[in-house]
């Protein structure tokens, strides 16, 4: 969101700080997520700060030699992903932000595919499918927001009052997107903290130490992006927003613990079936009852 009352330099500093803090808060969320999952499986979970420990450890490990092309792609991936989050935080254009995030993810896929390991390459091609599921959904969400606010700028969306019907359906789409961003499902794409998977770690198989930490940060930015989008809808009604996030998250984690994870084929259907339908409903209702036609 832009801060019009303050001098520009201060606003810029606030923006940088917010962008830097975004993934850290995602780390905290992931820590809670691991605790809750462990509790649901009747285990004692790790400390809440565990994702931070993991990240620090990875970043400070002795780096193994890594493919130079993959390394530069990874760096670019993180920069672009952070840029997309910053763009939304600065109140910029949502469509542009979604496209930048898409570009960031493409760079990650290229980085994963740049190495010779067949696991990484298969992982990369599945990551691409995941991108094909989530990117159109993100675009639909952005367009639905545009319908609500009459403008694609994040600042306008934050200020607009979303119609009652639009919020839950948008929440559903964003919930699906969150599940994908947290890599809960589909299982066989998952770069999740789950060792028993046929592609080992899929796209991150060949990454280690600092480079894995970079991939992890980029991944946290992706999650932060979805969370910021959720927050946008709820700025006008914070309680509704928090409730929506809590509800979708609960559904995701209960499903994760009572059902087997989806394969990428079923994820395609579920993602598009639920997320897509909900997004289209949100789009239509937002257009009809929102702040004004485009």
């Amino acid at each position, binding site marked *: 969101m832009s801060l019009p009352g303050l001098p520009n330099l201060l606003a810029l500093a606030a923006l940088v700080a917010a962008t830097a803090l975004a993934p850290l808060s995602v780390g905290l969320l992931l820590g809670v997520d*691991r605790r809750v999952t*462990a509790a649901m*499986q*009747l*285990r*004692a*979970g*790790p*400390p809440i700060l*565990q994702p*931070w*420990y*993991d*990240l*620090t*450890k*990875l970043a*400070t*490990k*002795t*780096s*193994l030699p890594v493919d130079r092309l993959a390394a530069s792609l990874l760096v670019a991936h993180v920069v672009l992903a952070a840029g997309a989050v910053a763009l939304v935080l600065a109140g910029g254009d949502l469509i542009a932000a979604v496209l930048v995030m898409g570009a960031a993810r493409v760079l990650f896929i290229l980085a994963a595919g740049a190495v010779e390991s067949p696991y990484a390459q298969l992982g990369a091609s599945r990551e691409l499918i995941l991108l094909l599921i989530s990117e159109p959904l993100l675009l639909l969400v952005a367009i639905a927001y545009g319908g609500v606010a009459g403008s694609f700028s994040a600042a306008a969306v934050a200020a607009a009052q979303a119609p009652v019907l639009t919020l839950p359906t948008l929440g559903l789409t964003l919930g699906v997107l969150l599940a994908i961003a947290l890599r809960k499902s589909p299982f066989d794409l998952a770069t999740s*903290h789950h*060792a*028993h*998977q046929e592609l*080992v*770690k899929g796209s*991150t*198989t*060949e*990454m*280690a*130490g600092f480079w*894995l930490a970079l991939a992890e940060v980029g991944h946290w930015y992706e999650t932060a992006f979805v969370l910021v989008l959720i927050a946008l809808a709820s700025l006008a009604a914070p309680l509704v927003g928090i409730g929506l996030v809590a509800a979708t998250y609960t559904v995701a984690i209960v499903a994760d613990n009572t059902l087997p994870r989806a394969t990428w084929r079923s994820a395609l259907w579920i993602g598009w079936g639920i997320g897509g339908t909900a997004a289209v409903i949100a789009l239509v209702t937002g257009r009809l009852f929102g702040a004004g036609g485009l």
Partner: protein
Amino acid sequence: MRGPRALWQAWVRRSRTKSPWIVHFDCGGCNGCDIEILDTLMPRFSAERFGVINVGDPRQGDILLVTGPANLRNAAVLRSVYDQMAEPKAVVAVGSCAAHGGVFRGAPNILGGVGELVPVDVFVPGCPPTPERILEGVIAALPLLAEPRTARQATGGPSPMSIVMLEPREEEVVRVPAS
């Protein structure tokens, strides 16, 4: 009040010892130890409370848990897995077989303990050791992860050759009855 650099170093040390990612390697054992290792991740033992994650990728692991006697074909794979891991790293040999070949010592396709192939930091005795003992072994290896091996040697910290041998508990000592 410590400076930011010291604070950061303390945080790094803390992170490294609180995030042991496990690479499990079966070097020719009978499955007993391997299943007990997996068992440590289960609700009763909840290894994840120490930050333990079982990763399948040696490049991402911190502690190599080796089970079984060194099988001649697997020996090369073990060495390769060890070499792929980045410092700081530690090796925990789980079970009697990994220590010295166990009941299989002298069998035609067995080299002996895994100490022949990789520098073992902790030996966990037992056939198989209980999950508690395996966790104890992992925890004994945690201080070694604070610094890479070379740095440990330079500062006189635990050296690669200092081996922690968990003492068998009273109830684990098998007394052979005089027949």
